């Protein structure tokens, strides 16, 4: 066997991961992805091992709930054949490996820097001097926006090439938010610091990333979560989904100048985030999720309060949605705008909500379940047009689905088990583990490697945005530039989650 088969959150010894020749590594991983659309790369990264770079590739199979892990040793100097030439979904992983370690590829389509990290291999490359694609023509013009955007959002630079109003090409330049966060996971000593750090990876996905970190850490420490821990986390994950999806519906209405929708969805988000504050003291759930702990257990009283919040939320949310879906002026903006075809989604490896809007049944809650999801028998919501409206519909239906899940869970509240956290301070030695969590945006993957003392040797975070930014660049082609805002909002990707 050239690979090791693991499950979500299953720790293994690093030395059990087969180390194969580069050629075998390439054929194995690109082959697995090409054989079935149910297989996709959830993480592919390098780290220093002695003088060499060790590459680890993780392919998840959505039908049999397995993750296939293989590895290979490479060196800077001689160029390698790229995975991307065979399967485009690896392109960004390889760009990152190139950027960080200087590994060269002979046939990579585009070795553009991913985030201009401060510890990049080639210090001569600077964010300021980056050569954007350009087209020399009398008819075409370029539009550049950012890094500071018009609204109150994170920075990134977008360079459009347009023919009149029509976008021919969009190039997205990120990296402005790079804070060196993966490296900080190794540098900060205490578990509390690491947990706090995980909440600040992407502030709109606090529960998602903090849960992924908690799972990673617990698995390194061989800690079995108790039902009450899983219960709180599952509810928090679904509430985060409801809050952000609702807020995104508001933002989409804002961008088509539909004031009523904008105001109503915007205000409907408020009771949900305020409930989070009542529950844990923070509207975005910071300070809530900690490895091995259930800091804010669900009580019957709190559950009744949540049911009350949902009972008043749901009719208003339904009413606004009915109105929106009957509004021709809104539909004419949403429908057939910003299309990502199923083929493109597969080719570039789109995940999460965006993948499900383009006909892919990709949802970690279903394919690699954790916490309470096995009990909920979660079935992904899938749409097929891949347009802005599909992404609107997915949000709407997922909100209803999350409410249903929460109601189902609240029927029975598990007892709070006494926490035994002692072993959480001593992760196992020489381990590798991988945790997948479905955040509201999509698949979050955290991977960790420990050394001979149980210390973290490498920590790798992958936000769903890492895959999905390319989907946005493809979605806007041949659309009017005035539709860019709704295309962008319909994905609502993370800058800091990407830049790390």
């Amino acid at each position: 066997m050239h690979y090791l088969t693991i499950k979500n959150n299953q720790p293994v010894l690093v030395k059990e991961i087969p180390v194969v020749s580069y050629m075998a590594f390439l054929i194995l991983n690109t082959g697995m992805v090409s054989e079935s659309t149910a297989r996709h790369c959830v993480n592919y990264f390098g780290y220093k091992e002695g003088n060499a770079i060790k590459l680890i590739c993780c392919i998840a199979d959505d039908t049999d709930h397995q993750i296939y892990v293989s590895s290979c040793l490479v060196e800077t100097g001689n160029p390698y054949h790229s995975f991307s030439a065979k399967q485009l979904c690896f392109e960004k992983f390889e760009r990152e490996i190139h950027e960080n370690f200087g590994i060269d590829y002979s046939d990579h389509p585009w070795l553009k820097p991913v985030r201009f990290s401060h510890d990049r291999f080639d210090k001569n490359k600077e964010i300021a001097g980056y050569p954007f694609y350009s087209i020399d023509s009398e008819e075409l013009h370029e539009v550049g926006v950012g890094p500071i955007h018009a609204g109150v959002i994170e920075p990134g630079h977008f360079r459009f090439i347009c023919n009149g109003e029509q976008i021919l090409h969009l190039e997205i330049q990120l990296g402005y938010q790079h804070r060196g966060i993966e490296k900080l996971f190794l540098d900060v000593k205490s578990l509390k610091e690491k947990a706090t750090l995980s909440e600040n990876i992407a502030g709109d996905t606090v529960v998602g990333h903090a849960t992924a970190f908690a799972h990673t850490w617990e698995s390194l420490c061989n800690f079995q979560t108790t039902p009450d821990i899983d219960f709180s986390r599952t509810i928090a994950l679904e509430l985060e989904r409801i809050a952000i999806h609702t807020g995104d519906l508001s933002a989409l209405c804002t961008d088509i100048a539909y004031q009523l929708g904008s105001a109503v969805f915007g205000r409907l988000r408020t009771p949900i985030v305020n409930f989070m504050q009542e529950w844990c003291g923070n509207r975005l759930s910071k300070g809530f999720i900690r490895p091995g702990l259930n800091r804010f257990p669900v009580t019957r009283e709190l559950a009744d309060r949540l049911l009350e919040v949902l009972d008043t939320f749901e009719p208003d949310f339904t009413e606004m949605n009915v109105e929106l879906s009957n509004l021709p002026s809104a539909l004419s903006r949403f429908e057939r705008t910003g299309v990502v075809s199923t083929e493109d989604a597969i080719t570039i490896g789109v995940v999460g909500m965006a993948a499900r809007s383009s006909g892919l049944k990709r949802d970690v809650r279903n394919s690699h379940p954790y916490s309470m999801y096995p009990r909920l028998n979660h079935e992904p919501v899938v749409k097929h047009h891949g347009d802005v409206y599909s992404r609107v519909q997915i949000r709407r239906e997922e909100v209803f689905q999350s409410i249903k899940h929460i109601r189902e869970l609240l029927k029975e509240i598990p007892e709070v088990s006494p926490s035994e956290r002692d072993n959480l301070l001593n992760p196992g030695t020489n381990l590798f583990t991988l945790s997948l969590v479905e955040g509201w945006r999509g698949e979050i993957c955290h991977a960790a490697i420990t050394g001979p003392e149980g210390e973290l040797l490498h920590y790798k975070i992958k936000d769903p945005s890492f895959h999905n930014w390319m989907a946005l660049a493809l979605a806007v082609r041949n659309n009017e530039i005035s539709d860019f805002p709704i295309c962008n909002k319909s994905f609502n990707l993370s800058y800091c989650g990407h830049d790390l």
Partner: protein
Amino acid sequence: MYNNLKILYHQGKQFIPDVTTAKVPGIFRGRPVISLVKVDESRLQATCPTHAISANPVSIDLGKCTFCGECAMAFPDKIQFTTDYKISTNEREGLIVKEGDDQPIAINPEKVRKEIHSLFGRSLKLRQVSAGGDNSCEWELNAANNVQFDMGRFGIEFVASPRHADGIVITGPITENMAEPLQICYDATPDPKLIVLVGTDAISGGLFSGSPALNRSFLDRYPVDLYIPGNPAHPLTVINGLLDLTRRSF
């Protein structure tokens, strides 16, 4: 039309009538109060993930605190968080709460530049720059403008161009890659202008203070007019901070 009216009717009145006295429900970690009870100070310091707690006398630097509540849970007799969300100030030292203190955190009127009241007291347009912010403070700044908090009623708004702005609001620890865009934005803003820091990361670098991927030299060059702490800062903290700075009375 009838449907629209029905929707509007079902929404009811959402705005908070008085944002200066509104109460926040449930658990909320605002200004801490530190009692004079003796505790093992080094153990207390060790509970804090961001090294915000100093010993002898025990104090919490709200410019470093992420309001996680760990210290209060481990030492409930020593530290308690009140629901007082008015924790913005114009002095960096004003963010340090010492044991025995139980006073509101306030603006020092001596330190407010003269032109702030006269020029920005009725209308304030701000350009926001996210310099490594994780989108939580940005999210709350947007929320400050929603139908509930409705900061616009005080004439305070975010604008798209620095040339239309009276000042800049910075979130995030200021990454190396944002240092130059931030400077360009500052230079493009007409004088006189304000600098407001929102959130722990902007104020002290927070958890990221040790990261070599930051470049905070911008803050060495210019005085800061207002510190709004939090992780993220609550909309009520933001609105009250801006009002207290710019208005003599309202």
